């Protein structure tokens, strides 16, 4: 009996709180018919926003992958002074809320910030453009790849790598033929998480993007703009794109969980 009540309550809660909002997105997007939806998606500003979001994500991804793998390697395989500090620093972005994160970047890299002011005479501007968007996206996604790769490296141990060293492999060969195959599932999951987060980041990006129409409007910012312009179909149509990406992320997560090696569950 308790079992049924608990299952029913859980389903009700999840249905009302999580599933219904997602259904509402698609309902509102198609409320004026498929033609209106199509027109809204093909709107030049929306397309420009989609393009910018994709470009920014593709720039963040390699940064994060290189950093995540490098950091995980150093932390998993070596003991050095400041190892714990490095771990804490990588986790900091989890504790910083989006608006605060954006503000931090503005205060250091903005025109009035110490670093921004230093670069300004050379005509280098870091905020209110693509660079700013990429930098804050790198901040909010900072721990994702490292967090997935580190446990895998810890579990696999270094025996195979040591064997490769004794066989005369150089650093790149060890990485390419021993480390990479071992960490590939963890790395893949980290990439999925990073992409999902980078494409959807709103608060931090809205602080540093400058919101120049057709230029620095990422898709989430464009959704806000259209929503505030009472362009509900446009906003919800654009939202379906990001919702679909979120659903794909969940499916990929399920696939990696089922077919990948067993991972530790984490929040």
């Amino acid at each position, binding site marked *: 009996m308790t079992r049924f009540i608990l299952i029913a309550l859980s389903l009700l809660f999840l249905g009302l709180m999580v*599933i219904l909002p997602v259904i509402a997105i698609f309902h509102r997007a198609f409320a004026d018919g498929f033609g209106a939806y199509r027109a809204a998606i093909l709107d030049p500003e929306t397309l420009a926003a989609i393009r910018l979001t994709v470009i920014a994500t593709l720039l963040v991804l390699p940064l994060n992958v290189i950093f995540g793998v490098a950091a995980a390697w150093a932390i998993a395989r070596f*003991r050095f002074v400041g190892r714990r500090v490095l771990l804490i620093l*990588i986790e900091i972005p989890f*504790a910083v809320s989006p608006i605060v994160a954006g503000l931090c970047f503005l205060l250091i890299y903005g025109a009035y910030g110490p670093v921004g002011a230093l670069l300004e005479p050379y005509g280098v501007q870091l905020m209110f453009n693509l660079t700013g968007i990429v930098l804050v996206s790198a901040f909010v996604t900072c721990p994702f790849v490292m967090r997935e790769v580190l446990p895998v490296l810890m579990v696999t141990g270094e025996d195979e790598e040591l064997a490769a060293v004794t066989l005369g492999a*150089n650093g790149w060969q060890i990485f390419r033929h021993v480390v990479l195959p071992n960490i590939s599932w963890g790395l893949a999951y980290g990439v999925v998480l990073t992409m999902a987060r980078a494409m959807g980041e709103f608060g931090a990006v809205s602080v540093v993007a400058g919101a120049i129409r057709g230029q620095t409007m990422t898709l989430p*910012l464009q959704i806000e703009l259209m929503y505030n312009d009472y362009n509900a179909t446009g906003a919800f149509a654009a939202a379906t794109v990001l919702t679909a990406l979120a659903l794909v*992320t969940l499916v990929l997560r399920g696939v990696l969980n089922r077919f990948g090696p067993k991972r530790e569950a984490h929040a």
Partner: protein
Amino acid sequence: MTAIPRSTPRVLPGLSLGLGISILFVTLIVLLPISGLLWQLAQLTPADYVRVMSSERVLTALRVTLTAAAAATLINGVFGLMLAWVLTRYRFAGRGLIDALVDLPFALPTAVAGIALVSLYDRSGWLGSILDKFGLQVAYTWWGIMIAMIFTSIPFAVRAIQPAIEELDPDEEAAALTLGANGVQRFLRVVLRPLMPSILTGVGLSFVRSMGEFGAVIFIAGNLPYKTEIASLLILIRLDEFDYPAAAAIAGTLLLLSVILLVAINLAQTRMQRYLRTEG
């Protein structure tokens, strides 16, 4: 930073490269921005700080943010525990799907969540129109802020509690049953007690997330100064007015609160686990 040799000399390559990349990245992406905020804060005199933080508008924004986050966290604690329990202990059709959907709020961009929630709870929305008949208004009120916070932070509560339930031994519950413990006793003493450290982590993360949430909240919040304005939005408003010191003061306060909370959770969790272990 130099490598401290362990028992065997390190033969694996890549320490300097891995460490070099890590330090460069962390410095540019994490350390410098955070010190940017600290640098701005350092230029404030204590009197400036007090003046900014004691204004009625800031105090109201903080109160709205913290009370809504607390309420959302309470609800997430209860439902997070329930969802985690149901997903771990029961097998039913669609369990895998439900398990995957718990992560949806984490995967869904916050701005998308924001417009979805407001369209649902608006007076013309599916839920808003029903609530309206009873004279209840959620959208553009404190309640809407709370709902948005529940939405974005529920995965944190569930995912923190779930692994701990997986480690619980159902035999102990059965043993308690044979020893004559009633349902409430079994739940409190055999189930809830060993879960407390992870529940604490779950609600702690949920609260920190709720406190800083922006995208999901601002659409449904109404954003009326002195009424339904959250702290994050006020930071953005001060920023638009180029009042950097005020923005930094509010942001620094929020950041300090999150850091204190996270450290406290960590400490409490370690202590609790040690206590539970010594208790056997």
